[in-house]
């Protein structure tokens, strides 16, 4: 078998295995619940091929993707930044407040909002990093505690003081609305060049551009720069990295803060293109979602993109399924969890096979040249 084909096969084997397994499990669950799995899948696919659904899919995938990159930065260093949830909440919260207080020319205003989110989020992540480096506090426990403190403490404490009482917010109490100069335009115009008009008021968030940028920067940075090398080496073997000149404490700090910084952008779709304020309906759960897609995408920019789009598709389908009465919404959640679990197992299995195979081939080559 030609070498290139073999390599591609190995890379795809694991996700393919995982997906098939998840499909089997989901079908079983569907059948037990009395739904017809084939029909359900057909509905999902049909729905998915509609332009409006694709827009919805990408809209959901965008914050998920950013969360995945944030998680991946940590994962590459063997750091588990479970605190992404609290970090992006704080970041968006602060950005919404600051953004509503000023009015600057368009791009500047947007930049300010993003910068605030990134700064606050990174600083909060920095707390956990400092605790780990200087006090040896386990970062998993620390970040979870900080999550609760951020959402249940900091935000809960200050929210009553920043609510906009001018009656602008119809349903949910929230911060002041940001001026239009702080809005990011949608990409409908760009898309409609290639396709028909997007109906039903669906807007493709402009933050998608930011997300793609973040992904590209991450990929280039981690694979091609010295700092990226240091980070990956530290994650693979911290002792060897240290002996190789990589400062361990600085790496941990850097990785956590960088992860937190990217996490700050997770809330941007909502603040910049959707809602333009922080309110009680702010979307949560993206922290864990990010961890999931990062694992699924094996911490690479491209893989995470696929994973985020897949999960975005599944999320988007869940509404349709509910409406059509074919299956319950939660089937999607089960699918996602199963895919994740199956994927990490499959990756390990394929990895072991690949290692064994590599050792064998290297040994044979060594014997030949002996």
């Amino acid at each position, binding site marked *: 078998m030609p070498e290139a084909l073999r390599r591609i096969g190995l890379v795809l084997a694991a996700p393919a295995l995982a997906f098939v397994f998840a499909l089997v499990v989901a079908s079983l669950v569907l059948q037990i619940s009395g739904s017809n799995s084939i029909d359900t899948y057909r509905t999902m696919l049909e729905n998915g091929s509609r332009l409006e659904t694709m827009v919805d899919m990408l809209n959901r995938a965008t914050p998920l993707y950013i969360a995945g990159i944030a998680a991946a930065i940590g994962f590459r260093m063997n750091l588990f930044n479970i605190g992404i949830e609290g970090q992006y909440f704080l970041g968006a919260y602060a950005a919404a407040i600051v953004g509503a207080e000023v009015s600057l020319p368009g791009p500047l205003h947007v930049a300010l909002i993003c910068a605030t989110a990134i700064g606050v989020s990174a600083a909060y992540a920095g707390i956990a990093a400092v605790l780990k480096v200087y006090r040896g506090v386990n970062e998993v426990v620390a970040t979870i505690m900080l999550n609760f403190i951020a959402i249940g403490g900091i935000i809960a404490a200050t929210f009553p003081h920043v609510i906009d009482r001018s009656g602008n917010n119809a349903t949910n109490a929230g911060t002041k609305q940001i001026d239009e100069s702080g809005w990011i335009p949608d990409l409908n115009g760009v898309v409609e060049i290639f396709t028909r008009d997007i109906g039903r008021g669906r807007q493709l968030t402009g933050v998608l551009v930011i997300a793609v940028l973040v992904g590209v920067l991450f990929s280039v940075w981690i694979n091609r720069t010295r700092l990226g090398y240091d980070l990956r080496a530290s994650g693979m073997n911290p002792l060897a990295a240290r002996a190789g*000149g990589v*400062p361990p404490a600085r790496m941990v700090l850097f990785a956590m803060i960088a992860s937190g910084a990217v996490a700050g952008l997770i809330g941007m779709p909502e603040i910049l293109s959707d809602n333009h304020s922080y309110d009680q309906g702010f979307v949560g759960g993206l922290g864990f979602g990010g961890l999931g897609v990062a694992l699924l995408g094996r911490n690479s920019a491209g893989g995470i993109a696929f994973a985020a789009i897949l999960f975005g598709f599944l999320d988007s389908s869940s509404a349709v399924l509910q409406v059509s009465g074919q299956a319950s919404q939660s089937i999607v959640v089960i699918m996602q969890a199963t895919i994740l679990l199956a994927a990490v197992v499959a990756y390990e299995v394929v990895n072991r096979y690949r290692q064994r195979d*590599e050792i064998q081939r290297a040994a*044979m080559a*060594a014997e030949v040249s002996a």
Partner: protein
Amino acid sequence: MAPAIELVGITKRFPGVVANDDVNLTVEAGEIHAICGENGAGKSTLMKILYGMQPADEGTMRVGGTEVSFSSPTDAIDAGIGMVHQHFMLADQLSVLENVILGAEPVLAGGRIDRRAARAHLEEVGAAYGLAVDPDELIEDLEIGARQRVEIIKVLYRGASILILDEPTAVLVPQEVEELFRNLRELKAAGSTIIFIDHKLQEVLEIADRITVIRRGRTVATVDAGSVTAQDLAELMVGSELPSPESGDTAATDEVLLSVDDLVVLDEDEREVVKNVSFEVFRGEVLGVAGIEGNGQSELIDAIIGTVSPQQGSVDLAGSDVTRASVRARREAGLGYVPEDRHEEGLLLDAPLWENAALGHQTEVPFARGAWIDRAGSRQRTEEIRADFDVRSPNVEVSARALSGGNQQKLIIGREMAAEPRVLVAAHPTRGIDVGAQADVWNQIRAARGEGLATLLFSADLEELIGLSDRIVVMFHGRLVATLDPAEIDARVLGSYMTGAALEGGADDA
């Protein structure tokens, strides 16, 4: 009387290598039988098969005349075989008693451990064979010699009549080796059969009744200890002259490249583990550091490399003070490092070879250009290392994990040397690699020395130390207690410095 152990036609294959090839071995009851061979000859694999830790691919095994087939160590233990491993299989944070009874615990009703019976039996065994240990002490608080005694008791506790000892003297100094041999003779007098794996010929000749020589996985010969000399054994083991390191002409100059002055290093409990150590390494010189593991060598290395900050004292690299400098700064100033454990500190096992070659040098040309990694440059340099240092691999893209131990070590040495360091710190550079690679490494160090490299060599292999070093210093309890000339060295004298017996008054200042 049937022989205690009979191995006939044992064969075991691993990917890319035949570890044991039609091995035949007969051990008589009540004798001390040595198995001799160089690193990588297949001794350990053979013993693992004998002890049930690995199944043989072909061949038969007989214990006391009866054919057996072991599927796990439990079977071997039941057959009366006990193994004392080279790397102790002890749980540090558990007590001696817990380690000894693990897997053979005496129980009362309900699964509760009968501590009284366990303790009694342990003391019985200790008394019968003259091995003294405190059952309640934690393993981590014991010295190496004591830990080995625990390993032996572990085996005797289970009523082993056949003992396998895998390179037991690797971690002992001459005096402790004598103590061990005393114990073994006592065991033999009590009726035990002992299989003794070793590659130090003098020791083998001293203790064994008969010797079997293994080379490249095959049995070469079985001889009586009384009728051979070390030379004979050496020839059998290697098939030709043992490649012992010869000193050659010294290339040492009087330019100091590494200077350590009054260095004090503390451990994590704030105790001094390196006490006022001072020495200099000159250009073109190899300074060997002898000493039992655990006498401060690791901490001294850490302070020189920069992973630990000393409490007091200074480290000078080619004239500039690097005492508080970062590891990276020291690397960039010309410090090379070959770590003691290549897997733990030397390699990124799942990264390709070219990324491993960059480790430690990723801020310099040809591995980096500014803030970017120069992939082409890295690959090029790795190819050069592969060629110059004979690293056997299909290409430079394979993971480091895929290489054999010897090739991994050659890669590490190669990457350090290729960066043209001014000072090289090498810790046990030929540990656990095959003879051929070992000889290659020695040659590389000698060649570099000729070109002006200053090397600080830490090793437990006395032959390596004596053969490569221009001067030897001895570390004991964190201090440098002697400076010796390798040309006039005596193993006993060296050993007594290493154990502190040579110190006036013998006061223990731990």
